[in-house]
């Protein structure tokens, strides 16, 4: 067997997870539909005044993104855990952190990226300005990977536990608050004519820190859960 390079490992894992997801497309779609539904519920709850909706749109989209990313976290490791694949991955000679990073990226492509792509359509429902739409997409692009990364820690810690779905939200949501603040803050900044640079920089910084540490922490969490 020829030895896999780290990049090769990463690509292999991502392709495998994407392929598995494409074999069962409904899983990906339900998360997306959930996101659309939650966002559409807000105008029904708070009333149809466009002025207010325009102000709230950024926050609503971000909260909905947070919730729907929680919803899909359970799937990140559970299928592999149940059929024993995860155990083999832990035994693999390659770096577990890189392997986990691959799974996180695949999870983001399946749950975060579709959300980023559909968000502008939802933004139109809220009468957002083109500038705000652009900023929203940009911020979601920066922020949703962080949600997947922090979520991966929670998913790994709660692997195989009863009530795992609710528990993972309880663990992960408080840790995601900074992402919510700066993601929604940038949209508000552009609405009030301020610069988005501080928000974008902070979110970018968080993305880099998360990228550096969360795969390793998640790998540790998996080892704790699987021993």
């Amino acid at each position, binding site marked *: 067997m020829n030895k896999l390079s780290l990049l090769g490992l990463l690509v292999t894992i991502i392709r495998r997870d994407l392929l598995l997801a494409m074999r069962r497309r409904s899983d990906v779609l339900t998360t997306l539909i959930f996101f659309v539904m939650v966002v559409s519920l807000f105008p029904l709850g708070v009333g149809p005044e466009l002025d207010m909706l325009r102000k709230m749109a950024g926050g609503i989209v971000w909260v909905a993104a947070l919730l729907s990313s929680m919803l899909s976290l359970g799937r990140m490791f559970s299928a592999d855990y149940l059929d024993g694949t995860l155990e083999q991955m832990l035994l693999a000679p390659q770096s577990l952190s890189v392997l986990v990073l691959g799974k996180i990226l695949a999870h983001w492509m399946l749950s975060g990226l579709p959300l980023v792509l559909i968000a502008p359509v939802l933004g139109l429902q809220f009468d957002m300005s083109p500038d705000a739409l652009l900023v929203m997409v940009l911020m979601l692009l920066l922020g949703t990977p962080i949600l997947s990364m922090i979520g991966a*820690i929670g998913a790994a*810690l*709660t692997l195989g*536990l*009863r*009530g795992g779905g609710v*528990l993972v939200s*309880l*663990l992960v*949501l*408080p*840790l995601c*608050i*900074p992402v919510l*603040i*700066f993601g929604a*803050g940038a949209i*508000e*900044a552009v609405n009030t004519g301020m610069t988005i640079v501080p928000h974008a920089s*902070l979110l970018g910084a*968080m993305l880099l820190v998360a990228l550096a540490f969360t795969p390793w*922490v998640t790998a*540790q*969490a998996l080892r*704790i*859960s699987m*021993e």
Partner: protein
Amino acid sequence: MSINWFKYSAPSTFYHLAGKLIPWFAVPAAFLFVVGLYIGFFVAPPDAVQSEAYRIIFIHVPASILSMFIYLLMAGYAALGLIFNTRLSSMMATSLAPTGALFAFISLWTGALWGKPMWGAWWVWDARLTSELILLFLYLGFIALQASIDDPRRADRAGALLAIVGSVNVPIIYFSVKWWNTLHQGSTIKFTGTSMHIAMQQAMFITLAACWLYVIAVSLARVRSIILERERATQWVSELQEVRS
């Protein structure tokens, strides 16, 4: 005389040590509470700005300080347990969590009681209030995670990892909430810069010391229960006076 400290890292020896130590912390805690509250309520004069309502600081400030300090302490113990595989450290982390959550809750509750007459609202989305609330959520997450894992070893290690990740996140959360608040609007609420009356200071430090001693006493009592629960299969537990009777 040299003391072998490692002797007490074994649950079986620490159980007895903790039992002996508890009264030494519990009694002074009760005494200082009484003294501190007496000075706070009867000796300290009313505040120039806030009149009588300020007196809530004698419980509010110690609770806030300790809720934050206990989280770090808990994360520290949890990290020790994770790194050196010492069971007692993990048990200490578990035993500190409910007390920390309690103090976070007391801090929020007394803050609300103070806020109503002072700010005219039970709750404002001030940076400090919001981060204290998130701290309470972090405690609850830690407790919930440990409660849902049956295997104590996995519970310890999973909780430890969560506590460490949480303590790395606490400053990030604090500053993001702070900037979020200042980006929205200038802070309308500031503590009055007046220097405190000496009796107020004394009362506050005494109640802080009392709360601190209470934390130690109560976490030692709780860790004794945890030790008994986890070591119930061992011989030394079955030979204990209180277990046999």
